[in-house]
Each structure stands twice: as C-alpha cells, then as structure tokens.
C-alpha cells in the first residue's frame, strides 16, 4: 500500500498532464490550472523543509562545539535577520532589507564568485599543457576563443573573431546539440519509466 498509492498518483498525474496538452476543453484547462497551482503550493512547502533542515543541522553543529561554530552562528543570524528586516522595514527602495542585500549579501557573493578567476588563472598555468595531440588541439582552440572574445582581437586580426565565431557555431554547437538531443531522449525515457512505475528510485528504490 505504501508504494502502490504513490505509484497510482504518479500514473494519474502523468497521464492527465500528458493528455491535457492536446486538449483545449474547458475541463482540461481548469484541471491544468489547478494542477499548476498545487504544484506551486507543494514547492513552497519544500522551502520550509529546506529552512528547517538548515536550522537543525546548524544547531546540531553548534551544540557539538565544532571548529566552524562561529560561521554557523553567523549563518543562523543571517537567516533570521533578513526576514526580520523585511517584516519590520519592508522591502522597498531605501529599506534596511534592501540596504543589507545590496551592501552585504551581493558584494559577499560576488567576491566568492570572483575567486573563480584566480583559480582559473592558477589552473591555466599549471594544468593547461600540450601533453598530447588532442590536448594541444584543445589548448589552441581555447586560446583562439580566449583572444577572439576580447575587443583587442579585431585590432590584431580580423580573422580572429571570425575563427572564434566559427568554432562556436560549428564544432562547439555540434557537440552541444548532440548532448541536448541525448538529454532530451533520456528525459523522455525516464519520464515514461516514472509514469509507468518502472522507475521507482524516488520511492527509496522499492
């Protein structure tokens, strides 16, 4: 029973969502609209689950007195502070919430993300080596695209941006398309397997 009910629900909703796509009937549209609303409500509850799990895990770490306790405390303060600021001062321009977002959260996240540039620089020095023929081809292609994407490329040679465009439009796109077609076929197969109850890993593999 524990597995049969979810399987039946899954089959019913899979079939309904598939069938309604081909119908413009009032009932089909009403069912579709209601399912879309349920979908949002269910997802909104998963956000609560996420927040609860975050609080639980952080409190557990703090109680164990691990080395990263100060960071956990800051995380929890941040989690409580932002909604509090939004509730007390609103979220309009000039509100404490928006000020904190603009002047604390955004710069901190941008800083962490920008560290990527430093690691790319370090990796390009250490890892990008012409060890084999295929590695050399990859290296040369990367260098052409690297230069071809900057305005200076047009000053060096007109053919550089054109070559970059060609690499992006043909070899790179061919590979991308192959991946996308593969993902599409895989998604369809998996969806069918889930709807028909063949794929049951979402029920803890039962």
């Amino acid at each position, binding site marked *: 029973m524990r597995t049969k009910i979810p399987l039946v629900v899954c089959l019913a909703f899979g079939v309904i969502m598939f069938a309604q796509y081909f119908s413009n009937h009032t009932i089909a549209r009403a069912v579709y*609209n209601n399912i879309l609303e349920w*979908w949002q409500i269910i997802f909104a509850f998963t956000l609560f689950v996420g927040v609860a799990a975050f609080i639980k895990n952080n409190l557990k770490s703090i109680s164990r007195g691990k080395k990263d306790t100060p960071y956990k405390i800051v995380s929890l303060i941040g989690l409580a502070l932002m909604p509090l600021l939004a509730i007390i001062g609103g979220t309009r321009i000039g509100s404490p919430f928006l000020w904190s*977002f603009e002047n604390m959260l955004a710069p901190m996240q941008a800083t962490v993300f920008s560290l990527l540039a430093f690691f790319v*620089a370090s990796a390009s*020095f250490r890892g990008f080596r012409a060890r084999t023929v295929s590695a050399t081809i990859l*290296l040369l292609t990367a260098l052409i695209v690297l*230069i071809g*994407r900057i*305005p200076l490329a*047009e000053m060096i040679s007109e053919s550089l941006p054109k070559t970059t465009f060609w690499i992006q439009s043909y070899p790179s796109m061919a590979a991308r398309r192959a991946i996308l077609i593969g993902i599409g076929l895989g998604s369809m197969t998996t969806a069918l397997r889930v709807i028909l109850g063949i794929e049951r890993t979402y029920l803890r593999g039962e």
Partner: protein
Amino acid sequence: MDRLRTRWIIFSGLAIVVIVSYLITIKFKTAPSPATLKAYKYLDTLPEKSVVIFSFDHEASSLPEIQPIALAMLRHAFKNDLKIVGLSLFAEGTAIGYDLLSKTAREYDRQYGSDYIFLGFKPQYISAILGMGESIKRVFPEDYLGNMTDTMPIMLGIDSYDNIEMVVSIADGDRTVQWVEYAGARYNQKVMAGLTAAMITSYDPYLSSEQLYAVVGGLRGAAEYENLLDKRGGGSRGMLAQSAAHLYILALVIVGNIIYFRNRRRGGGG
C-alpha cells in the same frame, strides 16, 4: 612552499592587472555581434507602450557581469517608452530586479504601476512559466509591494503571453532554457536573453534554431549594447579589465607550457 609562492604571484598578478585596467580609461570600439544587434533592433522597433517581461533569473554572485546587460536593456526599453513587467524566478533575483527596475525607471521618470511593475518571486519556475501562459494575474495575484495586480493600471489588458511582446530573461544559468521550453514551445512566446559569458555556448543551439530570439552575452555583450545605445556603462568600463585578464591568462598558459617543455627536455616531466 614553492607551489604556494607561485600561486601567490599568479593571484597578485591577476589582481594588479584587473585593478590597473579599471583605473585606465580606454574606449574600445566593439562591433556588435549579430545576436546583440538583433536584440537591440527588436527592442528599438517595438511600438511605444508594448509590454515586455524582464525576468531576473540570476543570483547576486553574477551581478557584476549581469547587471550591465540588464541595465543597458532596461534603459533602452524605458527610453522607447515600453511597458515593463518585472519578475524573478530566482529568490535572489527578486531584490536585484526590483532595485534595478526602480532606479532605472527614475532615470526616465517612469511611474510604478502605470509604466512598470515588479511582480516579485514565484517558487517552482516551471509551473510559474506555464501558469503565466494561462493567467499572469492568477500566478501573481499581488505584486512585490503587496498591491493587487488586477488593480494596477499597467495590468489592465494584460493577462497572458498573448499580451506580451517579448520575454527578456536575465540569467546566469539555465533558467532561460525553461522560458524557451515552456513559454516558447507551448505558448509561442518570443524569448531573448541576457547571459553571463560562461553560458553563451550552452544557448547557441537554441539561438541557431531561433527558439531563442537573441542573446546579449557577457560583459562584451553589455559593452556592445551600450555602444549601440550610445550610453557608456559597466560593460564598456569592464572591457579593458576583461581584455587584460584574458591576455594575462594567455601569457600564463604560454609560460606554463614553456616551463613544461623545458623540464621535459631535461627529463624532469611536467
């Protein structure tokens, strides 16, 4: 210790290159790419009061790269008196979108509620995108500020994608794909994107098949758009820094390979 010192030199070098580049002002003449030109021309030729959705589908981390693109496109839209419906399918994009939209609207003296509106964030982006094809007011009964959307002047006569000329998805990930796959495929909604440079190649197949109408990509795309708009912004300012960083990485690759081949000749390997 040696490895640490090398890393320290590389990191410091990059920091110096970028900081110095930002202190120097050189105006680059960047010829617009076909995709940027297409995006610009589309917004430029839309009749006044046409409605465009701007969806801020990104996180705060990509703000330095993505904001110049969004700003240039918003300026263009406000300048041409287009009506803008802002929203976000990323929780973090909510504050960013509202802030940027409000500040840009002020530059052009546009009024909230009649010239533009910000609907806020909706979780579960697929159902939100699909739902808006049926009724935008049903998905967003209230705007970001808590006003009932059906009482806002801008929303009179807007109820689904039938009343929307274009969706502009400002994204740092794959959220634009969902706009293409759900709003585009099911409701024939035209979609264009402002993307981080790292994401451009992922969208090339959609662009080539015209499922995605146009793309303004990366800091360079922003600079191209700013040139077309004749209003310098973060994209143009960042061009020298980006070019310098690219050349610096190029130099590192070359030096790394020289060292590698020299060591290999000596029998020391890489």
